[in-house]
């Protein structure tokens, strides 16, 4: 009895096909908006899809000296991790399909799986650019991960639950952005770090390390990593919109709020120069952590005063 809805949830909506398409659409919006801000025309609406189809059709070259099962398996695990995370998130403003106490932590770690897989994929190959890129990817991971996690836990504290559905019920009546602006800032910038967007694109800075950890990937593997990033962008934007922007209770609100967040992300991308990896680490551990800890302090003191 349960199987058909489960398969639907995994393969079509909210995970699976819907999320892949949404990921491509958001990637297009990201590229188009950035291009407009940079005085360029930008890609046509089907460009991300065309890129993926082209990559899928191409031969996947497995370089010498890699662990072959790992090389082929990592992109699949990365995409699967990102898609699984969608089951616990209110995608398109609907209730999460699966829910249990503490699913927030599981979701956040499923989202980190992509970065871990990219790092591992880079270290798996012999290519120097990949190895340097992988080192940078993992260095960046340990620098933004803790502040990002803390920023996402801020709403959980005030909601008194680590279950996404109960947090969203709490936040849909309140704009936590107003109460926790620092947490919001750290969360959105953390998401940019997670997605390796400029200015946090040192791990894949083309002028330094070609394509970073994914230099040796071609064809299907590259396409899957690519899709994984798109999916992760949608999930990340959904989570932040649900937690900080007064919840996403309907598909329309979901669209409006995530796109507003995307616009903010694009503006950040256009405004800043790429940070060197040491500057990224410095930024997160010097300012990111401090900001989010201050935010926690305010939240906890505020709660004490209210109760």
């Amino acid at each position, binding site marked *: 009895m349960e199987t058909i809805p489960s398969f639907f949830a995994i393969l079509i909506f909210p995970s699976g096909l819907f999320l892949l398409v949404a990921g491509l659409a958001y990637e297009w919006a990201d590229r188009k908006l950035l291009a407009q*801000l*940079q*005085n*360029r025309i930008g890609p046509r609406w089907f460009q991300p899809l065309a890129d993926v189809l082209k990559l899928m059709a191409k031969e996947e070259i497995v370089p010498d000296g890699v662990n072959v099962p790992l090389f082929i398996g990592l992109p699949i695990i990365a995409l699967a991790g990102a898609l699984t995370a969608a089951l616990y998130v209110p995608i398109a403003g609907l209730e999460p399909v699966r829910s249990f106490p503490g699913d927030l932590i599981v979701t956040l770690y499923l989202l980190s799986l992509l970065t871990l897989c990219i790092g591992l994929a880079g270290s798996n190959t012999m290519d*120097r*650019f990949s*190895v*340097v890129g992988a080192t940078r990817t993992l260095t960046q991971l340990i620098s933004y991960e803790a502040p990002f996690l803390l920023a996402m836990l801020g709403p959980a504290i005030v909601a008194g639950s680590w279950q996404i559905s109960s947090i969203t019920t709490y936040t849909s009546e309140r704009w936590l952005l107003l109460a926790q602006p620092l947490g919001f800032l750290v969360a959105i910038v953390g998401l940019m770090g997670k997605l390796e967007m*400029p*200015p946090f*694109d*040192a791990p894949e*800075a*083309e*002028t*330094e*390390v*070609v394509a970073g950890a994914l230099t040796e990937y071609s064809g299907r593997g590259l396409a899957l990593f690519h899709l994984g990033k798109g999916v992760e962008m949608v999930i990340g934007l959904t989570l932040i919109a649900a937690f900080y922007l007064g919840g996403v209770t309907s598909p329309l609100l979901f669209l409006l709020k995530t796109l507003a967040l995307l616009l903010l992300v694009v503006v950040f991308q*256009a*405004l*800043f*120069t*790429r*940070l*060197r*990896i*040491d*500057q990224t680490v410095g930024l997160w551990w010097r300012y990111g952590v401090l900001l989010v800890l201050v935010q926690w302090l305010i939240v906890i003191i505020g709660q004490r005063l209210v109760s």
Partner: protein
Amino acid sequence: MHQDQTVERFTVPIGPQHPALKEPANFLITVEGEIVTKAVVRLGYAHRGIEKATESRNWVQNLYLLERICGICSHIHATAYCHGVERLANVEVPPRAQAIRVLVAELERIHSHLLWLGVAAHEAGFDTLFMYSWRDRETVMDLLEELAGNRVNYSVNVLGGIKNDIDAGQTQKILAGLDYLEQRTRHYLDVVTTDAGFLQRTRGVGVMTRNQAEVLGTVGPTARASGVARDIRVEAPYAAYDSYPVKLTLEAEGDLEARFVVRIKELFECYRLIHEVLDNLPSGDLTTRMPRRIKAAETVSRVEAPRGELFYFIKSNGSDMPERVRVRTPTICNMTSVVKLAVGHQLADVPMILAGIDPCFSCNDRMVIVDRGIRQQCMSWDALRRYGIAYYHGNHS
């Protein structure tokens, strides 16, 4: 354990094919973590044999060949060549032609510096500045097209003068374009000196002291950013530069920021010079007669290209073809500074330091003879063929 660490070196090859390089060159960067401990440069991937080719073309044909050495500073190559040949032939170029040569050279400098600003910003990962500066570069490209009919190889020079005159309508367009560019340039100067993110990547990075700049023989804006007062337009004015004196732009810091500032401030100097040329354009002929053959002699011609001193040695032998033309472009003078400065910096800074000298590889590549036990330097065609077959056979077996 310690022994192992010193033996095992991690070398990142930048080039010959690499996204940071728009032309082929090879940098072997040895890193320890992210810190560069050694940098080696290998050039010569884009050798085109132009110097040799000049010896089988006549004086006029060579003008068009040499103009194609560089796609960005084509006019300055033609100017250097023309000056040399005119001196060999004892021909005096009319003042109006000299002034228009200066005018086009300065427009070209604007084009080159704006292009560089974009490329350097891209190396730093600041693509917004890249896109905007290249958009504004279109203004000066349009002006050059208006003036010469071409966007890249303007082909304004001929031996003994220039080809294109300038009329009142063109003057108006240039003035209007300069007004726009001046306002934009002020904005860019503001960006590169105040944008905190950008300054993190440029201030105090790749510092070259004045002493180093002199010892390494750097030229052009790279040297001027380290406080070395070196500009051929000032030291040995050619064309009409003695009638339109240039003010040197100097910065003392010697870091990447200074190189940005020097080039952007030079743009203002370009605008001022162009205004001055247009205001005081002498009237008269555009060309004088050039002899077809030039008696045996040799000369040196030095001009200030956008990247620094451009050096031509020209030798004639009494025929209508040169005996020898030697071209030394500014990139080769500045290249040693890249290898020197990269050590101790992060890998991420290397593309920036390289971009800081505004490299132009195919211009600087000359024949390199790698001695593989074959002593003779002149080979017959058959010997070269046999050597080539043996070389590739040896490599692939």
